């Protein structure tokens, strides 16, 4: 393992922010793994740390196969993590909307440009990431439909779901999109949690990456073969909204199978305590996404359902 500095942001009074890269193996650029770009992606940071630990072990036992180099960048944004801000603390920009970046541009454009310089050219790119709307997901691999995406490769992570989504204009600044446009097979791995650590799903994410690297002939690692993923298009997910604001009481969670007419959640009057609304399942299906904050505002999406799918 070699540690190197990919990019440094100098600061007047804080420590300089060094974006670190960890290289394993040597030879052709096989796989690159990128951790949090946002300050609340603590689960993603944790997953990266566990992956670095595993890869160090794997390298020591000689299990990184010949002529394969793996680069892990565990965080692009410790400045925001350390002050508990979600976006770049100074100007609130989102680093994962700044790719491919600009070497002469604003601070976060420079971060994106320097990181992109380091991560481009790999055969496979994997990013641990959170969704822009806070909430909990079923663990899944997400790919943007750029014309270059490969769903069959995404299946090799062995996670239960692969989600494909159409690229919107605002997706064009993401690392995933730019990786794909630059010839890297790019995958975003979503874990249920973001701001809190969930050991079980962190282990699942680490295993999924190691399984993928094994199947691509980059490392040798014995692991369970995982799931054969269900492929879901984002547009086919059914959004379920709340009709009132109040205190939110979820009854069902991501991964749960639900039946038509079942009560999924309740909204409680924040002062008088009575249930003022019930969220009813409009279809059979499996919960893919769930709102997880204790308060809810009317009309916001509280669940996304994979319709007519059974466990």
């Amino acid at each position, binding site marked *: 393992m070699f540690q190197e500095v990919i990019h440094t*942001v*100098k*600061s*007047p*009074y804080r420590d300089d922010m060094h974006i670190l890269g960890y290289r394993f193996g040597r030879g052709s650029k096989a796989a690159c793994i990128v951790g949090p770009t946002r300050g609340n992606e603590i689960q993603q940071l944790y997953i990266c740390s566990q992956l670095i630990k595993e890869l160090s072990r794997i390298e020591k036992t000689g299990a990184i196969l010949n002529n394969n180099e793996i680069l892990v960048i565990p965080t692009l944004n410790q400045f925001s993590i350390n002050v508990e801000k*979600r*976006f770049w603390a*100074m*100007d*609130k920009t989102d680093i994962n909307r700044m790719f491919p970046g600009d070497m*002469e*541009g*604003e*601070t*976060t*454009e*420079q971060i994106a440009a320097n990181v992109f310089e380091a991560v481009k050219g790999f055969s496979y790119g994997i990013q641990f990431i959170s969704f822009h709307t806070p909430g909990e997901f079923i663990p899944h691999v997400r790919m943007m439909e750029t014309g270059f995406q490969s769903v069959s490769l995404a299946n090799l992570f062995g996670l239960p779901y692969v989600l494909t989504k159409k690229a919107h*204009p*605002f997706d064009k600044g993401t690392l995933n999109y730019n990786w794909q446009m630059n010839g890297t097979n790019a995958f975003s791995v979503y874990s249920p949690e973001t701001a809190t650590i969930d050991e079980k799903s962190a282990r699942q994410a680490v295993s999924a990456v190691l399984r993928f690297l094994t199947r691509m002939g980059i490392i040798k690692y014995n692991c369970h073969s995982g799931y054969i993923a269900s492929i879901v298009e984002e547009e086919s997910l059914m959004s379920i*909204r709340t009709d*009132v*604001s*109040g*205190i939110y009481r979820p009854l069902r969670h991501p991964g749960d199978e639900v039946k038509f007419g079942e009560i999924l959640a309740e909204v409680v009057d*924040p*002062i008088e305590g009575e249930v003022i609304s019930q969220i009813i399942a409009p279809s059979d299906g499996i919960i893919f996404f769930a709102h997880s904050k204790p*308060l*809810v*505002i*009317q*009309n*916001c*999406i509280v669940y996304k359902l994979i319709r007519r799918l059974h466990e």
Partner: protein
Amino acid sequence: MIKTVVSVGLPVLETMHIKKNRLTPKSPKASEKRFCVITGIHGDELEGQYICYELIRRIEEKIELLSGTVDVYPCVNPLGMESITRRVPTFDLDMNRSFPGDLEGDMSEHAAAKIVDDIAGADFCLDLHASNIFLREIPQVRLLKEHQEKLMKYAKLLNTEFVWVHPSPTIQPASLYHSLNSIGVPTLAVEMGVGMRITKQFGDQIIEGIFALMKELGIWEGEVIQPKDPIISTAKDRVTLLHANASGIFLPSVEHWKGIKKGDEVGKIVNSLTGTIEQTITAPNDGMVFTLREYPVVYGGSLIARILEGEA
């Protein structure tokens, strides 16, 4: 007449309202034109507050000169304004990236859709912005190249020294400007001043322009000024961006909105611990500083100034 454009219930004992003030002539006719002024999409931009107040005050003072409908939307992100938040609080989204919105969507999307619905059919709309807390801007009209032919004649009436035809974030797809123009409501965006402050002088300048525009639209019958003849920048290379190469505290050496000669000092980035200069920033060409860094703390990459090339 005060009207509520949209209301959204919040979790605890509060409803968010977005309101407008509709000013109409004393004796209305059926065929009047409608002009909309909107501000506060970004909760930290307050320059438009003075303009809305002054516009309503001056119209009501001489209401007999009003010959069309004026709708004033002074605060379309009230939760942002009163929590010193640029974006829509709790959703942490830029409201100017959520247009045309979705009536069935969440608070921010729903509000955006209601606003677009309310303005739809108007004869003209003006979206007032006030930069952000980092940069001070001279009053300037912003529009896209594709709308230049249709909108430039109105842009020139707004009494600014500068019209920037440039795909800046204020007017990009999913902005109010973009959504309204695409449904046939001619819309211009104005940027001026700096976030969290009111620069009365800029407000007064734009107010005169608004009356000149209203006169052209046939909405105002009073006397108006002869608007300034603006410099129009369409070619990207006429605007030079100066970014910081060092981190530290920026101390400007020039005044905003003043001419500058090639080689003149724009400012210094200093280290307040060691008492040393980290970088001296100089002008690469003659021109006018139309954007100047206001917030002193900078990192490498922070925008320091924009210079419009020309004679100093």
